[in-house]
């Protein structure tokens, strides 16, 4: 297995973010470059608030840009970390308004599941994702949807890269165990489509 490849131009964005500490005007280049991916992150998890969250994330990133250290990870991973914090704040606020109680966790699964439902994802896959531990599912979606490398996903979540890789391995193992064709044939009723494939095989 080959290690992660850096995203094209990631060195440039690291340098831009580093330069933006002393020259705030440089920061706007990052806004143009990364807004589509950060907006996508918010749309998938908080579709009604994505535009506002994007602005909030960029302002927080601007204020906190001095904390970026290129020797500890890429600008991409760091920016998704900021976006993740902004999303968590949004979820906390929404839940406080609804319940006036302190929420214990800030998993955007409800919105994600609605997206999967709308995309007509196979129910078994949806259930398998729902049953994953939230911290494994979050990493999996960062890698699948946001195209982050495991190292960038680790930086975004604020955990060591090795821990992220272990969790991703476990998530893959759980999904394989739940979704492998053999298991469908023996443990769950087969759908007509699967029956067709089985017969033709």
């Amino acid at each position, binding site marked *: 297995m080959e290690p992660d490849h850096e995203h094209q131009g990631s060195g440039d964005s690291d340098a831009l973010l580093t330069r933006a500490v002393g020259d705030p005007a440089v*920061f706007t280049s990052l806004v143009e470059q990364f*807004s589509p991916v950060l907006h996508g992150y918010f749309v998938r998890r908080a579709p009604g608030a994505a535009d506002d969250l*994007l602005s909030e994330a960029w*302002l927080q990133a601007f204020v906190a840009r001095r904390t970026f250290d290129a020797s500890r990870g890429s600008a991409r991973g760091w920016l998704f970390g900021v976006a993740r914090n902004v999303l968590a704040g949004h979820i*906390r606020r929404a839940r406080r308004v609804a319940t006036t109680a302190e929420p214990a966790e800030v998993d955007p699964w409800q919105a994600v599941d609605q997206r999967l439902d709308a995309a007509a994802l196979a129910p078994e*896959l949806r259930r*398998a994702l729902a049953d994953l531990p939230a911290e494994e599912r979050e990493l999996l979606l960062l*890698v699948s949807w946001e195209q982050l490398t495991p190292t960038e996903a680790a930086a975004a979540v604020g955990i060591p890269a090795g821990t992220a890789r272990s969790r991703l391995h476990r998530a893959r193992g759980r*999904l394989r165990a739940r979704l492998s064709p053999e298991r469908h044939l023996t443990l769950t009723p087969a759908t007509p489509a699967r029956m067709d494939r089985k017969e033709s095989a």
Partner: protein
Amino acid sequence: MTQRDELLDFPGSEALHAAGRVEHPAPRAVAQALAAVEAAARQETAQHTVALPVRRRSSAHGRRILATVLATAAVAAGVVVYGTTGSGGRSGGHAPQQAQAVTAAAFLDHTADVAYAKSASSGRYWKVRKQVRHTGAKSAPRTDNSSTADYYYARSMNAVHVVVGGQTHTKAGAFAWGLGPKELHSWSDLNRLPVAPAQLVSLMNSSKEYAGRSAFLQAGTLLGETPARPDLRAGLYRALARLHGVELVGTVKDSAGRSGTELVFTGALSTDRMVIDPRTSVLLEITSVSTKGRDRGETTRVTYLSSGPADKIG
């Protein structure tokens, strides 16, 4: 095969990936973000590249100390130094020419970081112990009243309970905090406020002298009086950092003898000051002196002795 490919090697992986496809953001969304960042960048550039004189309070011996802010180098180097002043002769007035290496904006942004890291608290009431001192206008026979009381704000804000000298007085009615044109009639209203500094600034500036109170004072009141959650408190501090005319005075002691960093804002109708504890982000004291009209000289000072959640009164 890369690590990423291998980790996504499970049945349905491609379908999952496809379910995550989204449209590009509307140009308006990116433009909005860009405008917010550009405004913040312009403000920061203006504050960090101009040498600003900072007026400090007179020392106990009547000396006025003038320090020059040359923040560019210090901020670029990540230096955070808060000036000291000898207010009351109780703290370090021994460094009259000490370079002040931080602007009000940098101090407030740092305070916002501290506020953001705090955990939120919850209770039936929000209890604020405060000392209020009111000095009348110069044009009238001067009055000088001071009182200390515990205020209990219920979640619904349909009553405020005030405990003075062991006795509880309940004031019924619809109470509200204010920010710009928004009236916050409950904790839930407070929680619905935006936390993005640009939005808060916009709110505050939409009514600069709301009910005769400057934007600076409005934000200060929310910080001192309310159970604003950490992200809102951080947002308010960042909004204050973006207000024009806020200056850093330096380290002072409030009227309760606590050390904090003082900021001053000269508004259209009043000159307002805040003392903030930079270690905790807690607003210690806020003072407003009317500078116009027949109220000129009227001074209200609120010293926040403590605040936090409470489940019962008394």
